[in-house]
C-alpha cells in the first residue's frame, strides 16, 4: 500500500467505490473481450441499416462508395476510442486499489479526455471528407457542438482542477 492508497478498513465509502469499479471493469471487459461484443462494437462504428453502411454516422450505399480517407479515419477513430476505453479501465483499476486522488488518476483522466476530444476531431474530419470539402461555418459549428470534444475537454479540465486540488491538499497536510 503506497501513500496515496486509502485503507478500505478505514472507509466503508471506499468499499462502495471499489465495488462499483469492479462491476464497471467486468462490464468493460465483457463489452470488448467477448467476441460477440467486439462484433457489436464494429456494428456500432460501421453498421448496416436498410442496406446502407454508416461511418461516423455518414451513410454509404456500398463499400465501393466509401472514400479511402474515410477508412483511415475510421481505423484511427476506432484506435483512439479503444485507447480511451483502456484509459477508463486503468482508472477503474486505480479506484479498485484504493488510489483515488493520485497523480496516476489525473494522468489517466487527462488521457481519457484527450482521446475523447481526439475522437471528436476525427468525427469532424469525417464530416469534412463526407462533404467533400471544407465548408467553413458549418464545420466550425459542428466542432463547437461536437459532444465528444465538449465531454473530452471537460474531463481534461476537471482532471487539471483535480490535480491542483491534490497539490493544495498535500501542501495543507504539511502545514503545521
Amino acid at each position: 500500500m503506497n501513500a496515496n492508497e486509502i485503507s478500505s478498513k478505514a472507509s466503508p465509502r471506499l468499499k462502495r467505490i471499489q465495488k462499483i469499479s469492479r462491476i464497471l471493469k467486468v462490464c468493460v471487459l465483457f463489452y470488448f473481450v467477448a467476441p460477440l461484443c467486439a462484433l457489436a462494437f464494429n456494428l456500432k462504428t460501421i453498421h448496416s441499416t436498410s442496406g446502407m453502411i454508416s461511418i461516423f454516422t455518414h451513410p454509404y450505399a456500398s463499400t465501393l462508395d466509401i472514400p479511402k480517407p474515410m477508412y483511415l479515419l475510421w481505423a484511427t477513430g476506432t484506435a483512439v476510442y479503444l485507447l480511451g476505453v483502456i484509459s477508463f479501465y486503468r482508472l477503474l483499476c486505480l479506484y479498485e486499489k484504493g488510489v483515488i486522488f493520485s497523480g496516476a488518476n489525473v494522468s489517466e483522466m487527462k488521457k481519457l479526455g484527450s482521446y475523447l476530444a481526439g475522437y471528436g476531431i476525427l468525427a469532424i474530419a469525417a464530416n469534412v471528407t463526407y462533404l467533400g470539402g471544407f465548408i467553413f461555418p458549418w464545420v466550425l459549428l459542428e466542432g463547437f457542438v461536437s459532444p465528444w470534444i465538449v465531454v473530452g475537454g471537460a474531463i481534461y479540465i476537471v482532471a487539471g482542477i483535480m490535480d491542483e486540488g491534490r497539490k493544495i491538499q498535500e501542501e495543507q497536510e504539511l502545514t503545521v
Partner: protein
Amino acid sequence: MPIIVNLDVVLAQRKMRLNDLAEAVDITPQNLSILKTGKARAIRFSTLEAICAHLECQPADILEFRPEERKKGE
C-alpha cells in the same frame, strides 16, 4: 528550502522533549516532527505563537533564512 527550522536546537537548549512541547502547545507529535525535520511547507502564526510562548523565545530562534539553501534547491 532556504528556511531552516531550528526547533531541535531550541528544544535541546531548554532540555525539553518533542512530545512534551506537543502536549503543551496542543499539536500532535507527528505534526511537530514534520516541523522539526524541515518537511513542513508552512507554519500557522497561531502555531508559531504557541511554540514561542511555551519556549519563551522569538520566531527568529526557531526559523532561520539561509540563502545558500535556496541555490541548492534550485
